[in-house]
């Protein structure tokens, strides 16, 4: 019985290559089952041997929302009126949890799947991709929580809600691009893995996840901050979920930044991919 009928051409030619190699889409498609398995395993293993299992996926964003509500409304006195702060925080958290945990998982994916890198010819780009994809579960759960709370506050999503899907797609491209860059670099320089947790912490404070931007509307300071693509992305996401002011130009900056990051990530990864097994 044939193995990987479509994965391999009848003849494979192996010789040194130069420059970045574009990912072979056909090959990725042939390995789609492996991809699904990797995602499924990541999700399954994450909650294996925890007593509460999947309840954690619900409890974590809920607890975060509670913590933020206390910290930012009671201690820091942030006012998000007319939007209830809980909804404000949950909408930011849905995207932030996905992006931050996706970057974390993606960056460490190659190093923690070293056997796949050094012992199998499966396309390595699948590994960070699976790591990022497995975090979509958290996104969906948080989004459902948001809808529940939306209902509790007596609100109904408007027509703009349909933009959740393309915005999530954009967040995925961003997260995947960062993960490609960092996961390949992390194999060579493990310093990346060490620096990541506090860098992500810093990123949180530079993004309007739990509190609004402090600079007014579309001033130049705001545009500088928007070089962080999460600014435009989260603002657009809130517009879609809560009907806040649309980010216009800030979103365009986010689009451009995401495209740049993704391109850099893909080209660095495909350049490193050739001999990444030697660097382990």
């Amino acid at each position: 019985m044939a193995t990987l009928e479509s994965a391999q051409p009848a003849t494979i030619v192996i010789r040194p290559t130069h420059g970045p190699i574009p990912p072979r889409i056909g090959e990725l498609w042939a390995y789609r089952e492996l991809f699904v398995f990797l995602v499924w395993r990541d999700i399954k293993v994450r909650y294996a041997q925890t007593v509460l299992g999947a309840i954690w996926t619900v409890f974590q964003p809920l607890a975060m929302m509670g913590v933020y509500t206390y910290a930012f409304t009671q201690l820091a006195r942030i006012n998000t009126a007319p939007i209830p702060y809980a909804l404000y925080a949950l909408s930011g958290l849905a995207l932030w949890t996905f992006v931050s945990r996706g970057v974390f998982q993606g960056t460490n994916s190659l190093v923690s799947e070293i056997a796949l890198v050094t012992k199998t010819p499966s396309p390595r780009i699948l590994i960070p991709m699976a790591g990022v994809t497995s975090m979509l579960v958290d996104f969906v759960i948080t989004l459902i929580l948001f809808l529940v709370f939306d209902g509790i506050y007596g609100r109904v999503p408007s027509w703009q809600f349909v933009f959740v899907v393309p915005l999530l797609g954009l967040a995925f491209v961003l997260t995947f691009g960062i993960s490609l860059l960092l996961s390949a670099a992390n194999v060579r320089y493990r310093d990346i893995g060490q620096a990541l947790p506090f860098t992500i912490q810093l990123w949180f404070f530079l993004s309007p996840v739990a509190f609004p931007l402090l600079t007014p509307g579309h001033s130049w300071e705001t545009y500088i901050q928007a070089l962080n693509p999460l600014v435009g992305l989260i603002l657009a996401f809130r517009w879609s979920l809560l009907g806040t002011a649309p980010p216009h130009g800030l979103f365009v900056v986010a689009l451009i930044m995401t495209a740049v990051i993704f391109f850099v990530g893909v080209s660095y990864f495909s350049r490193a991919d050739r001999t990444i097994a030697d660097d382990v």
Partner: protein
Amino acid sequence: MPEPVIQVESLEKRYRVWAHEKPTNVKERLRVVGATARARLRLRDTEGVRRDVWALRGVSFDVHRGEVLGVIGRNGAGKSTLLSILARITEPTGGSAILRGRVSSLLEVGTGFHPELSGRDNVSLNGAILGMSRAETGRKFDEIVEFAGIRDFIDIPVKRYSTGMQVRLAFAVAAHLDPEVLLLDEVLAVGDAAFQARCLTRVEEMTRSGRTVLFVSHDVRSVARLCQRAIVLREGLLAFEGSADEAVEQYMLDPSTGLGANALPIREGSGAVRAAGVRVVDADSEGNPVPGGRANLSVRLERRAGVPLDELKLMVEVRHHSAGPCLFFATETVDLIAAEAATATLTCELDVLPLKPGHYTVATRLVHRDELVDRLDNAGDFVVGSGGLELLEEIAAHPAPTYVRHGWRAATPVAEVRSSA
């Protein structure tokens, strides 16, 4: 003559390694970073910082349809590099290789095995990693479980399996691959003797049905059994190409392989991890250790299967040819469950080596939760030099192999005792 299925043409592979010892302290590391940066800025090669090592230096050979070609050579001869290039895990530096047909490579059994997942889940996952479709794995599932002989345990997490069971299950998945061209590393060397025999039979069956196999090993017995033809690699070059028997002979006769007593080491155990090399050196000079000096005893562990191992224990016995066992060391448990590397080196630091000059052998034993993983009687040998020490004739002649630096003191001042060392 039809076209060869595997066609390797002056294949070369260069690795860049640290020119000096890998920098260990901050100062040394900064110096290396500085030197590298300077060299890069001047667009010069990072000569002096990195050094080139050629693992393959122009190897060419062909494998024809239905042939089983053995690749033998000692550690570092380029066997694994050759296999990684053909398996498309890394790129060659020069030359080319052409593979005609669907290729499967098996460089490790149990790659991707996860301790938290059940045997059933791991079979599907490992199958997908090896390139089997879900439908195919499903079709062969019963056969795989049967082959591994673990039907009753298939739905519990593999972390509850014994090492032997994990290795059997991992190999069972691999054994049901069905490619046209199979690249095979020394994965057969797992499991107990009975299981190994079944594995060899399985590979024989596969080859009989017209598959082409490239089999890399330093176990010359299985090469002689499985292969008609074999090549010998030495220092990255093709040293011999011919019938398997002749190749094995060439390899064994080669003085540089340093085989002799080690040619057919006697080993037992599940083989998930193996002791690959033992060195005993003086802690300061890195040369032969000396009586009473500080010495380092290091054992290299090679992981043969992707199965996780926690609570692994290493035991080392130093033996003298006539006096028998004279020293014994054991580790606390070694946690290899999270280890990424395929190999690891454990070093035992001896404050004092209490041995007289002479020749000693080392036996190793690896145990995982009371189960024998690897036992090797002649894992290595070493010579204890004189270290400028002149032993009393009586001491030198006595059969006891141990020696401790000492001095004599008289309790009453009747006579001074001359110290023996």
